[in-house]
Structure formats: structure tokens, C-alpha cells
């Protein structure tokens, strides 16, 4: 539809259709023509954003970094519009079994740490970079569920946790909220694990706009997004499904740690090229 704002999102779960169909109806009822395109992984979404096929992309933190680099390489710019309240100040933890007696990062040296998917910021790149930054060398065992989804699928973290409980690995890396979730659901029974190491805070997903998108369209979209209220019964179930209470303004300072991790592991090159060996979404 001509004049509509076109957003890309990654279909990491069937609920993504329900969420964005619902938001689409809401945007349209508020006077903004809005369509969305679903991608099977983030890499193509980012490439399409920078190529101008999309106006905005609902990006993972890794996808934000790549869109920034691709934009720079092609003379474009991207900017963060909004993020969920739950995208701010996350941390990752490296968890060991209490009975294994591993209490410090140093004691992990030479051991095996289970991680999420290769491209998971929270369950692989950030915690592994954190350990490396501490000078601790470990063997990573990746649980590659949903490669290309940048860790959106919690399956890799859950498999890593199961491997920890089965004694197959010495520790497991995961998002702090996943650690709480797995404790509550019993995958990590209460009292059986302990946090060995924790990363500093970082930010997660961000709605990203490219400078080729019409500015007034972007402004209206951003205004509506930030104006969504948890009191609104129409959007509340969608906010619940998308895992937020309110949209907040986008910011970029929370991606420094991940940028360093990307460079450390050569995940992307400076021009946004995919350089991680074996990474094939």
C-alpha cells in the first residue's frame, strides 16, 4: 500500500504474526497506514533495511550493530526509535552447579561452558566476551537452536541449562531473566545452582529506522509507539505477548559491550559483513 510505513520483523515464533497483526490494526485505527514484512532471520532483514526496502526494522541488538555498520559502509545512517522497557539494562550470568564447587570466574578456566545459539548476544557473545575479558579461557559448547534469530528463541538457553543439570558441562551462560524463568519452571531446581559471574548491564532489542524512510512517517510511527498505554485493553494483550509494559525511547549506549564482543569474536566485519566462521542462518 502506497504511503504505508513498512516494518520488518523476524518470525522467531508464530505469535509474531498475532502481535504485529494486532499492532497493525491499532496503528491503522490511529491513522497510520502500517504494513509489516516477516523475515526468517535477522541478517536479511538488516540488509533489506539498509537497501531501503524497509522503513524500520524491529532489530535484535546484534542486528542493530550490523545495520549501523552496513549503513556506515553505504553512506547511510540508522537511528534507534524505541525499545521495550524490558530491553534496558539486562545482564547475563554464568551459572554453575552448587555441588560442583565452582565459585569464581578463575575456577572456570579450562572448563566447558554451555551457551545458547552461536548468534545469541545474551547467552553466547556477551558472557563469553566477559569471561575472555577477565582472562579466563573456557571451551564453549553452543546449543544452536534457531540460528539467525540472534537468541530470540529461548530453546538454546534451556538446552544449555539442561546440559548443566545433566553434568555434561561445568557451567551455562544465559540472560538473567532466563535464569529466573528456568528456576521458576524447575529446569534449574531451586537451590541447585549458583551465579559464578555476571556481565555489566546492556540493552537488547531496538526499533531501527533508516534515513531513506520519510521523516514524517517515522515521527508519527514513533509517536504512536511511545504513546501505547498498558491501560489500553486493545494493545495490552499484544504488549503482554511482546513482553513489555511500555515503549521507551531508543538509545545506543547500551550496545558498547556487544560491539566489543562482536569485534573480539569477529562476528561481523567493520563494514557489516558476516565474518563468523560457520554462522549460516
Amino acid at each position, binding site marked *: 500500500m502506497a504511503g504505508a510505513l513498512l516494518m520488518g520483523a523476524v518470525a522467531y515464533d508464530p505469535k509474531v504474526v498475532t502481535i504485529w497483526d494486532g499492532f497493525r490494526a491499532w496503528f491503522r485505527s490511529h491513522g497510520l497506514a502500517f504494513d509489516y514484512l516477516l523475515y526468517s532471520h535477522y541478517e536479511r532483514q538488516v540488509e533489506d533495511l539498509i537497501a531501503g526496502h524497509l522503513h524500520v526494522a524491529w532489530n535484535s541488538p546484534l542486528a542493530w550493530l550490523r545495520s549501523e555498520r552496513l549503513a556506515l559502509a553505504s553512506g547511510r545512517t540508522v537511528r534507534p526509535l524505541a525499545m521495550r*522497557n*524490558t530491553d*534496558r*539494562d*539486562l*545482564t547475563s*550470568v554464568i551459572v554453575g552447579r552448587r555441588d560442583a564447587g565452582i565459585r569464581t570466574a578463575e575456577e572456570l578456566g579450562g572448563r566447558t561452558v554451555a551457551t545458547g545459539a552461536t548468534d545469541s548476544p545474551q547467552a553466547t557473545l556477551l558472557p563469553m566476551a566477559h569471561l575472555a575479558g577477565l582472562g579466563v579461557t573456557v571451551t564453549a559448547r553452543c546449543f544452536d537452536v534457531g540460528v539467525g534469530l540472534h537468541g530470540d528463541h529461548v530453546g538454546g538457553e534451556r538446552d544449555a541449562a539442561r546440559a548443566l543439570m545433566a553434568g555434561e558441562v561445568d557451567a551455562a551462560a544465559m*540472560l*538473567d*531473566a532466563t*535464569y*529466573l524463568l528456568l*528456576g*521458576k519452571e524447575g529446569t*534449574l531446581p*531451586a537451590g541447585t545452582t*549458583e*551465579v559464578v559471574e*555476571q556481565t555489566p548491564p546492556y540493552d537488547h532489542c531496538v526499533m531501527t529506522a533508516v534515513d531513506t524512510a520519510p521523516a514524517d512517517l517515522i515521527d508519527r510511527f514513533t509517536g504512536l509507539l511511545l504513546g501505547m*498505554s*498498558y*491501560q*489500553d*485493553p*486493545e494493545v*495490552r*494483550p499484544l504488549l503482554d505477548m511482546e*513482553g513489555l*509494559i*511500555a515503549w521507551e525511547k531508543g538509545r545506543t549506549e547500551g550496545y558498547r559491550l556487544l560491539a566489543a564482543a562482536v569485534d573480539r569474536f569477529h562476528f561481523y566485519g567493520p563494514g557489516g559483513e558476516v565474518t563468523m566462521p560457520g554462522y549460516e542462518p
Partner: protein
Amino acid sequence: MTAAVLDLGGLGLDSGAHLLLQRALAPLRPGDRLTVHGHHPALAVHLPAWCRAEGHRVEPPDGGGSVVVRGTGRDGRWLGATRAGTGSRGVVVDHPPARWGLAPRGALVEEGGPEPHFDLDDRRLVWAEVAPRLYAHAAARQWDPATAVAWDEPFHLPDDVEAAVVQVMTYLVENEQAALIVPARFLGRIHPHFREVVQLLAVQVADEARHMEIFNRRALLRGGPLGSSSAGGRASLFTLVEESDFALASFLLSVLGEGSFVDLLAFLERYAPDPVTRRVAWLAMQDERRHVLFGVAHLEEQAAVDPGLGSRLRAAVERRHDALRDTAGLNNDVFDALVMVAAGSWEPEAIETGYRRVQRLERAMDEGRRRRLERLGFSAGEAAELSALHTRNFM
């Protein structure tokens, strides 16, 4: 600014600490601070993660416990919530809105969610003041088919009398099947706000299920095959099942049909040639009386506020009569079986007695129908006319 303090002790957020946090945060205003103490080893990781998901904020610990700054959290969920009526027993509103959906009467209903279409959402169409009392009565009077009848009580009947009983039982099972389907089809259309009516109809459905069981079991008690099922009888019953208007279906089934059935069951109880037949007829009669009571009560209340109801009821009887004009009505085998049951033998005097008893039954059915029609506001003349148009199949 309130300075609230919470001590979680050793309780973790993976073991229920969120309950204490929610309780402590509930009375605070957004921006207020809650100092949280605790010695669960993962508290420093879990607490910020929990607060982030719940819309609160944690300030870095300063050595004296973590400080949670209350956000608006999920308060918005309940700001527009309203109650689905008062919840008092038997107190209902005239037009419950679709958005109440499956919410129990009196519950605090969050805005949003599905708005299921229950087309029977008008108090006048479905409600009867007696419904709560009738439901309580119905629930208290449930019985177990396995033990409520002494199935092994010894008796012996001549073969022809046994065959007549089997034919009558076959007819009863068929009729109860229709009497089960009719309320069952309306159950899902009635707005759940009218809970006692839904419950009452649900028990009615269960009643009919048990009736089918005991009549069927009596039919097969001596090992014989079931009797016949006539096309006319089935056609008559199907006009009941097809009626999609609740008031009209209730009128045709309960007021006219089941009302006549109560007389039939009383007849069987009185002239039953064996104790098992007597008992199953009595058990079913108790339930059917209740079904008739509800049908009459809610139509009586509806008639009081809807002057057009009478003519619609009349039209329904006439329509059904026209539809069945060319059918045989009652299965001849059933009529003859009733005579044989009431006669007890082939002696001409006995047959004559049996025949007179069945004639008296038909008069009793007619009188009963006229009485109930008059309760619904029909004149004596109209009642007699409408009663005469009722199906010859009884139900």
C-alpha cells in the same frame, strides 16, 4: 516519599518471593521506594530481572539492601475493570454485555478479551425467578441408575405383556433422546450471566441421559430386542429439535410435551405390571415435573412483560401441527402396547379396561395441557383449542 522495607529472608524469586514483593509494592505510589533485604544467593540477579519485567526499577545496592523504585507496573490492567453484576445469588441484570463473556457473575472483569456472542442474553427470554431454587432442588435429587432401581427384583410377566413394556420403553428412550438434545442445543447460546438457568438445563440434560439409560435397561432386562420406532414419531420429535427459538422450544418441549409425559409416567407407575417398570417411571416422573415447572415459570414471567408472546406460542403449536398433519403421530405399536400394559392379559374384559385407562390418560394429558396454557394467559377456549392441536405423539 515512603520508606518501606521488606525482608525476604532466604526466600528466592524462584520460590515465590514475588508474592511478598507484590504485597509490599501494592500500597506504594509510583516513585516510592522499597528497601528489600534477603540472603537468597541469586537475589541480586533475580530482583532486577523481576522488576524489569514488572515495570519497576532497582537502584544499585548501597550495602543496606536493594532499593526497588515502584513503577506504574501493571496497574493499568485493572483501571478500567468493572464487575459483572453484583454476584448475589439469583440477582441478574437485564442485558449482560457480551464483553463479560465467561466471567463469573460478580467477578472483576478486565477490559478487553473476546466478546463471544451469546444470543440468549435478554433476561426476559431465559430467566425465571424460580431457577436458582429449582437448580438446588435438581442438584439435590440426582440419583444413580445403578442403585436407584432394584434391577434384580424377581418378577414374571406373560411374553406379550413383557413385549408391550419393551415397546413402551423403546418409545420412551426415543423421546428422552429428543428431550436431551433440545436443552443441550440452547446451553451454549445462553449468556453465562444467567448461570442458574444454564445449570438447571445442564442437569436437565443429565436427567434425560439417565432416563434413557434406565428405560433402555428395562427394555433389555429380559433379553428381548427393542421395539419399533415409527417414522411419524420421529418426525414429531424432530420438529422439537428443529425449533431454534428458546421460548418456543421450551413451550413445545416442557409445557406441552414433558407436561404430557408426566401424565404418561404417572400412568405407567400406576399400571406397571412389574416393580422395575414402576420404579423407572416414578424416577423419571420426578425429574420431568421439575422440567415442566421451569418451562412454565419462565414463560409465565416472559408473558407478563411481553404481550406478543401468546400469539407466538399459538403460532408455534399451529406450525408444528401443520408440519405433522400428514404423519401418523403416535406409533400404533405404542398405543397398543399401552393398552396391553394397562390390561395385563388378552382377556376381552381386561383389554376393555386397558383401553379405557389409556383413554383416561389422554384426557388427563389434555386437561393438564389446558391448565398450563391457562397459566400462561390463554383463555379456556384458546387453551382447549391449542391442546387439541398438540402432537398425537404426546411429547
